[in-house]
Structures are given as structure tokens and as C-alpha cells.
């Protein structure tokens, strides 16, 4: 396959960026999107040019490092991560636009790499359970009803890639935050911090400068892990419950 790539190039956080055009040849349909970028980078290095910087780590769709907006879609046309997107999703001769996540809370570091530490601070605000560490606890000590366990697991699938923020026209982190809140709030292990978790995480989310939810549903469509839009509804419910309880105290 021969492709034309238009890639966002930006020297550093303060520099102005622009789309640069590259031609790549000899791309196999079985390559992943990142392997295609590797091919481009090898050519750029041989030519003595600066390779395109992009985030990647596990390359098996579970770490959430890769973060490319491909042809206007977070993670590209398939519902998966950029690393698990294969070139068979494109045609020979295609022109492909590659851009970084766009949100003021995710500033561009270089080229396609953005700083997602805002997500870390949201997690630090409440995305944990207070439990003594050490040996694994006895599995039957804390019974969890099967529907609750399934609900928690569905939300625990979030890999924190930030595609929801990238896809949202408001740059909102509602889907990410709600996945974490729902995951922990439904479980008995998360019960002691049920109220403070949702209040603190939402407050941190606002603090980081993410936008709000207007129910466009773009986040859930982009999510490679299929976190549903109603996850946000669940967080709103938890937030209102926690606010009511806090008001009584």
C-alpha cells in the first residue's frame, strides 16, 4: 500500500504546530497503525529528519498509551486503540490525517504526544480504595453480588487513554471519571469513600479545565473499551446523592 500521511508536527509545547505531508510506500495491510508510523519514522531517521513523536507502550490494546486522532476519529475508524487498528482498514492511495488529542487539559508535548497527567490527578483525588495492602484477602470475606461485579468490571475496563476527551466537542472527561466512580462505588471495598470519591473526582475534573457533558455521545462512540454513555448518568446520580448527604451533615 502507498499512502499519503498528513501528520501534526509541533516542536514543543510552546511552538506553533502545523500539518506536514509525507508519502509512505510498502505498507502491508497486516501492519498496525503504529507499525506504519514506525516505517515512516525509519525513513525519516535515514533521511536525517526528526521522527514523528507519538505515545505507545503495550501495543496490545490494554495500556491506553497510544493516542492518535486518525481522520478526525479518536483511535481511527475501528472501535479499538490506535495500536490495534490495522492498515486493512484503509485503502491503497488513501490520505490519512493524524492529529494529537485536542483539549486544553491535555497540552501537546511534541507532535502527537500530549500530557495526560490531568487524568492522574483525577485518580489521585478519589480513584482508589483505602485498604491494607499485603497478602491477597480471603475471596469469600467480602461477598459481591454477581450483577455488581459485572457492573464494576464493565467500568474497570477503562484504560484511561483519553479518547473520550479527544472525541468530546467540549473536551470533557466525564466518561473517564464516571468509569472510575462507577467501578469503585458499586463495590463494598469502595463503599467507605463512596461520597467523597465522586465529589472530589468531579471537583478535580473541573479544576483541570475539562469541559462539561452535553450528551452528544461522542465519548462512548470513541471509547475503545465500550464504556457506555449511561456511565455518565450513573456518576451524575452518585454526585447528586453525595451532595444531598453532604448537605445533611
Amino acid at each position, binding site marked *: 500500500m502507498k499512502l499519503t500521511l498528513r501528520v501534526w508536527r509541533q516542536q514543543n509545547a510552546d511552538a506553533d504546530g502545523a500539518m506536514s505531508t509525507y508519502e509512505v510506500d510498502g505498507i502491508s495491510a497486516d501492519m498496525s497503525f503504529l507499525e506504519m508510523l514506525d516505517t515512516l519514522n525509519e525513513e525519516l531517521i535515514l533521511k536525517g529528519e526528526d521522527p514523528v513523536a507519538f505515545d505507545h507502550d503495550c501495543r496490545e490494546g490494554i495500556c491506553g498509551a497510544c493516542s492518535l486522532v486518525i481522520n478526525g476519529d479518536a483511535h481511527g475508524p475501528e472501535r479499538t486503540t490506535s495500536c490495534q487498528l490495522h492498515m486493512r482498514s484503509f485503502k491503497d492511495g488513501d490520505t490519512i490525517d493524524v*492529529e494529537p488529542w485536542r483539549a486544553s487539559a491535555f497540552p501537546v508535548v511534541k507532535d502527537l504526544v500530549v500530557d495526560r497527567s490531568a487524568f492522574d490527578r483525577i485518580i489521585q483525588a478519589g480513584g482508589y480504595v483505602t485498604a491494607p495492602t499485603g497478602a491477597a484477602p480471603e475471596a469469600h470475606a467480602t461477598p459481591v453480588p454477581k450483577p455488581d461485579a459485572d457492573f464494576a468490571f464493565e467500568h474497570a475496563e477503562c484504560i484511561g487513554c483519553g479518547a473520550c476527551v479527544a472525541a468530546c466537542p467540549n473536551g*470533557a472527561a466525564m466518561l473517564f471519571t464516571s468509569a472510575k466512580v462507577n467501578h469503585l462505588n458499586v463495590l463494598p471495598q469502595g463503599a467507605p469513600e463512596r461520597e467523597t470519591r465522586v465529589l472530589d473526582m468531579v471537583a478535580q475534573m*473541573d479544576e483541570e479545565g475539562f469541559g462539561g457533558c452535553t450528551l452528544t455521545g461522542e465519548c462512548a462512540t470513541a471509547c475503545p473499551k465500550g464504556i457506555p454513555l*449511561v456511565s455518565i448518568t450513573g456518576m451524575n446520580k452518585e454526585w447528586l446523592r453525595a451532595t444531598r448527604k453532604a448537605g445533611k451533615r
Partner: protein
Amino acid sequence: MTRTMWDSSVGKKTVMAVSGLIMLAYLVVHMLGNLKIFFGSDEFNSYAHWLRTLGEPFLHYEWALWIIRVVLVAAVVAHAISAYQLSRRDIRARPTKYVHKKPRASYATRTMRWGGIILGLFIVWHILDLTTGTVHPDGFQAGHPYQNVIDTFSTWYGNVIYIAAVLALGLHIRHGFWSAAHTLGVGSRRRDRAFKAIANVLALVLTVGFISVPVGVMTGVVS
């Protein structure tokens, strides 16, 4: 508690949802009342007068109407301020647009902000036209709403402004009602289709109900 509500983006969205539902409930009653125009001038005018005597003798003359007006103004102001502040936040959160643009979201979703502004301007005109009579064509007659309605819808601009605003209202309710359900945390995967259906039905019924009045005047059914 009030501070937390107003300081949080989720809380402000709750304010929008609740104030929106208050206005929606009013609109349903308002639309049903408007339909009385099809039963002739006596019935419509006496209905309009009854609105002023509503709640008597417990309430004084026009007090019920004024209570409703105060609640509605509060709802409009709360809705508009939170919409403005939330929109500012949303626009700030996404300062750089994507180079590769795709058509996104439904028409109703994309037009919420402009639709809201149009509705706000319409409300001002609507009150100046049919409540105070300030911009009313052909001499406003207090206490004769039937004739006033006919006067308004006998002008081309009266019809255009009204019908455009009602269409914007339908779109606004279509996305707004369903959104409110999710903002208030009552939506769920199981109930999602039901809420979407209710939103669509409400939007359609209100649009048709309101538009039937200018259409009635234009076709001569109401004269």
C-alpha cells in the same frame, strides 16, 4: 450544599435540567390553553380571564399568574446563566479544533446553544407582543386576547418569528428532555429508549400544538 451545586459543572447542569423541566411543564399547559382558541372568542377570552382569577378567593386577583411569572423568570434566568457559564467552560476546554473535521452529533444536539439564544429573544418579543402589547400591530386591546392573537398572526413577520421559534423549541426539547433525564441520573440503559421516545413525542406534540394557532389564523379557521 448550594455552593457545591453552583461551583460544579455537574451541579450547574442539574440547575439547567431542573429549570428546563419547569419551563417544559409550563409549556405543556400553555400549549393546551392556546388550543382553546379553536372554540371561539368567548371561550378563549373567558379562559384568559380565568387565569387571572385562578386561586381566588384564597389568592388575590392575578396573584397566581404573578407567582407563575416569578417562577418562570427565575427558571429562565437560572437556565440562561448556567448555559452561558457551562458553554464558556466547554469552549475553553477545546480551544484547538481538529484539522480533519467530521459531521458530529444530531442536528438537535448541535443547535442547543443557538436554539436557546433564539428562544430567549423570542420570549422577549412574545411578551412585548401579546402581554404588554408594546410591539403589537394594530392597537393592543387588553382583555381581548382572541383579537390580539389574530392581529399578530395576520402579519407575515408575526407568523415567521413564531413558527421559527416553535421549530427551534421542538429541537431544543428533543435533546433537552432526554439530556435532563441523564443529568438527573434517572436515565439508564433499559430506560434510554423510553426517554428518547418521550422526548420526541413531547417535542412533536408541542411543536404541532403551538404551530396550529398561526396556521389556524392563516387558513381562516380562527378569525
